[in-house]
């Protein structure tokens, strides 16, 4: 994630391009959002038994599935941070911690931990609960770097069907995050 994209206006431009169908701009925007959200989450996760990278991934998945709730004329990061905060509160609740959601004030004083290597486990676990076909679609793109068309060719399936299956798989992954 060596991207230096991080300027608010730049992320908003990328997101607008993404909404117009530019997948490369979208990937850059998502990486930039991850880069901004990671230290923000790290400060708030410190000592709470929540893995930062798991939360970054859960946030990205929610950013993706709820991207239509971003207003194209608004800055991206307040919106993305609100999603991260929501997912953090959710994760803390799942782990049984009765911590109030509004932890912003105190969190500023917590030390930022050293950068976590991407050792996220929740997503891999959720991926394992998917049916064979959607899992192969997701893994083909994620692990082997295939395009949707290449995955479709390999599975002998229609490209549109693969797109639909992929979108459904992402919704399922989001719902099963950290719950298996």
């Amino acid at each position: 994630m060596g991207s230096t994209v991080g300027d608010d206006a730049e992320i908003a431009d990328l997101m607008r391009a993404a909404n117009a169908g530019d997948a490369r701009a979208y990937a850059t925007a998502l990486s930039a959002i991850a880069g901004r959200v990671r230290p923000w989450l790290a400060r708030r996760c410190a000592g709470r038994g929540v893995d930062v990278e798991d939360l970054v991934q859960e946030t990205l998945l929610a950013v993706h599935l709820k991207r239509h709730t971003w207003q194209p004329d608004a800055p991206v990061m307040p919106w993305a941070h609100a999603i991260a905060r929501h997912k953090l509160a959710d994760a803390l609740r799942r782990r049984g911690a009765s911590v109030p959601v509004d932890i912003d004030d105190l969190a500023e004083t917590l030390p930022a931990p050293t950068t976590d290597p991407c050792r996220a486990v929740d997503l891999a676990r959720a991926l394992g609960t998917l049916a064979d076909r959607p899992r192969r679609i997701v893994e083909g793109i994620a692990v082997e770097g295939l395009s949707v068309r290449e995955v479709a060719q390999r599975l002998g399936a229609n490209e549109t069907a693969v797109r639909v299956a992929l979108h459904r798989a992402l919704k399922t992954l989001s719902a099963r995050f950290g719950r298996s």
Partner: protein
Amino acid sequence: MRTDDLVSVLAADATPRPGMERAFALALVAGAVAAVGGMLVALGVRTDVGAALETVRFPWKFVVTLALAATAVVAVRRLARPETRPRDALPLLALSPALLALSVVAELAVVSADVWAMRALGKNGLVCLTAVPALAALPLVAMLAALRHGAPSRPTISGAVAGLASGALAATAYAAHCTDDSPLFVALWYPAAIAIVTTAGALAGRVFARW
């Protein structure tokens, strides 16, 4: 899975999606059609509607209920965005109660005290209390579906405001049927009926507006 790999997967799913405005516009139209249709089929418009329209009190009911419907729809649309805090949306909702309070004061001033109770109780209190929640059921489903398409940080509060919007749409439809036009009646029964829908919305939002 590495975060970079996840980004590749998400980018592969980067197809344009319908926006929130469309979802709430659809919910509003579907909800209004369901409420008005339900009223026409089950209750009917009052028979003296022509004469009633020439009074002040009958049209005023619609000013109050439509003000509530409009502000509640705007508020729930805002609440469907994750960055909206309740204080960014809820103050709007004071408009309709303020209008209603004004008309109550006016009514108390122009009507003698011995008929206040009769005006407030009216004849249709229990009809109002059952018809408004019944007419609001489908609009509430539509509003909650739109809310679910969004990403509300506060599902319970957002669900309550969805209930308020649905209750206000139902009350608007019901007002065309009801012959009790005194602001005293409206101030007693309508809020009670709409509160039932609001509570249902809060409970449903807690479950269905999570994401």
